[in-house]
């Protein structure tokens, strides 16, 4: 099979509103940060090209709105994702508590083939801010309980760990892709001709 060198990964960013999902993405894609808060309407889309292990990867990043009123879009957004990035605000404990429901919701809606092995990455954002409400230890314990999700502490404002986190995201998604299923077996390609005109004619059927 002729493999394309390029791979396209669909990455979903989830988390409560105002934890910094859009800021992380902007820092990663545009290396820009703004203190001004602008709520995302529905979803925002960005593209970033990176090289991972000599492979050219295009990341199609789906930055979703954290507000509940946009949750109805869930299924559509989550379908066919290659990686899911969960984000919380280390200064806001409620955003950490929501992680379970974000993760569950994603797994229900996206229904990936192997939910246990689906690649998640957790980002604790706003580490530049005080006071800290969720410790690194607490976050790491949560990650361990979820089949060892990788954890990064980030600051979208200072660009801290953002590049590394997204690199990990790309790697995890790629690893998942490489465990590809065999698409070539068991396909009944051959057409079986029968002696009678089969229903393939139907409305098309010729007058013969």
């Amino acid at each position: 099979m002729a493999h394309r060198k390029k791979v396209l990964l669909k990455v979903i960013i989830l988390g409560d509103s105002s934890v910094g999902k859009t800021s992380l993405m902007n820092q990663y894609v545009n290396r820009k940060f703004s203190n001004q808060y602008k709520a995302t309407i529905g979803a925002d889309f960005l593209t970033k090209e990176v090289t991972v292990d000599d492979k050219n990867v295009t990341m199609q990043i789906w930055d979703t709105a954290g507000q509940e009123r946009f949750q109805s879009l869930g299924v559509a957004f989550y379908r066919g994702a290659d990686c899911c990035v969960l984000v919380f605000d280390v200064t806001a404990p409620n955003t950490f508590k929501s992680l379970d429901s974000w993760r569950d919701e994603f797994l229900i809606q996206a229904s990936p083939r192997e939910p246990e092995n689906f690649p998640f990455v957790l980002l604790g954002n706003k580490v530049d801010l005080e006071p800290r409400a969720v410790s690194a230890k607490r976050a790491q314990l949560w990650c361990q309980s979820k089949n060892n999700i990788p954890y990064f502490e980030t600051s979208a404002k200072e660009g801290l760990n953002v590049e590394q986190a997204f690199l990990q995201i790309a790697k995890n998604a790629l690893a998942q892709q490489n465990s590809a299923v065999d698409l070539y077996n068991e396909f009944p390609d051959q057409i079986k001709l029968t002696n009678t005109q089969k229903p393939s004619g139907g409305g098309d059927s010729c007058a013969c």
Partner: protein
Amino acid sequence: MSSTVEVEPGAAPESVLVTADSCENFEHMNSSLEEIKNLIEIKQAAEESTIETVVSENLEETGNFSECDDDEDDYVQNSEWTSRKKQVFVLSMAGKPIYSRYGNEDKLAWLFGVMQTLVSFVQSTNDDCIKSIHAGDTTFVFLVKKPLILVTVSKTHESENQLISQLNYVFNQITSTLTLTRLNKIYEQRQNYDLRRQLTGAERLIDHLLDFTEKEPSFLLGAVQCLPLASSVRNTISSAITGACNKIKNLVFAILLANNKLITLVRMKKYCLHPADLHLIFNLVQASESLKNSENWTPLCLPRFDSSGFLYCHVSYLSEDCQACLLLLTVERDVFYVLSQAKQAIVEKLRRTNCLEAINNSLTTNEETCLTAGFTELRHYLYKCKSTAQFYQPSLAPPYTLEKERLLELYKRAHQHLHCSSRPLKLVFEKSSKEVVLAWDTKGFELYVVFEPLIDTTGAINLVGKLLNWIKNREDKLFHLNAPTF
């Protein structure tokens, strides 16, 4: 309006092609896929009520999405990209890019996300299906055919139905490469699949198909044009093929074509070929220069015939000195050598009976123009015989030799008048300063005629009668009237 012709020109007791009304062809392209194997619920989308959203905001707003891109990658700011008259995109239900007519789809990944969101937003909020968005002179048409989404953004004057028909052709081209069964299996197993891996090399066919559908009236009419040949010659060719092939088991179709025109089609009894499938074959031959150099053996799915599996196709040109292309289609995957021998036998027979020469003569002779045929006030026309799904057109003459595109636009407009679902017309007579267009839909045929601008209705009707007689007198030559079988 009545003509003196009793049976429409080009009509035959049996047809080599499935005879689809061209209108049916546009609106129910998808239904046959369903009929064949009941594989997917395509109809659902068509039956559900549809919404039409009118976007009034300025489209430049979408520029927000891309302020981040590097300048050279930023297609939205690129005037060459934005000035394209028609963009075509294909994506998966997950919003992953599969095909973009212009520009690198990786760089447009964000845009595919937006398209998927538009489709699924309408789906999830109203359990409905988005069909089109109209904004100024731009039409956005969506065709949701699970597991794919096809989108066109058009500034042409084509109707929504015509744009959908084009998208259906693109879908069928993809199906033709993979089979619908495989396409569905892939996404059942992996929703996040990057289909471009399977379509490497096929983008070229889609590119060509899109240009093809925009240049050739055959797609508009849902018909094929035949290479003019004396009926005795065409019969000799057909029987040369039957003679060489009738002992070969499971050979379904033998097709001989040249210069985008059909020479003959021999078929297994009980099986017919749909014009839309034949168009895909014409596209394959036209788009693949490499076929000229050697004998080829390729799997090919004909979605209207059977979307679940491949036919195996022996493709070769007859000889160095006769550039007609012969395709032998079978369900057996390992009979290359058998078909290769049959091809040799066919060529030898055709050479002995001077058929190669006859084909070459027809290929090098220009079709008559209206003027050389003696119709001075007539500029051009398309005549389609419905019962055989074949059409005829004369050679282009001035002013349309330089305005081919505008001529086809006239035909598309007239075709839309006859086939719009809300108020289809039977007869259209339209005068402008540049020309007069007459379109006539009858039980047996469709006729589109372009006249000199000063002609009046009586004059036009008289000429149409004469024209039909002219075609009738030449029908043996212009149409494939037999439907030979193995």
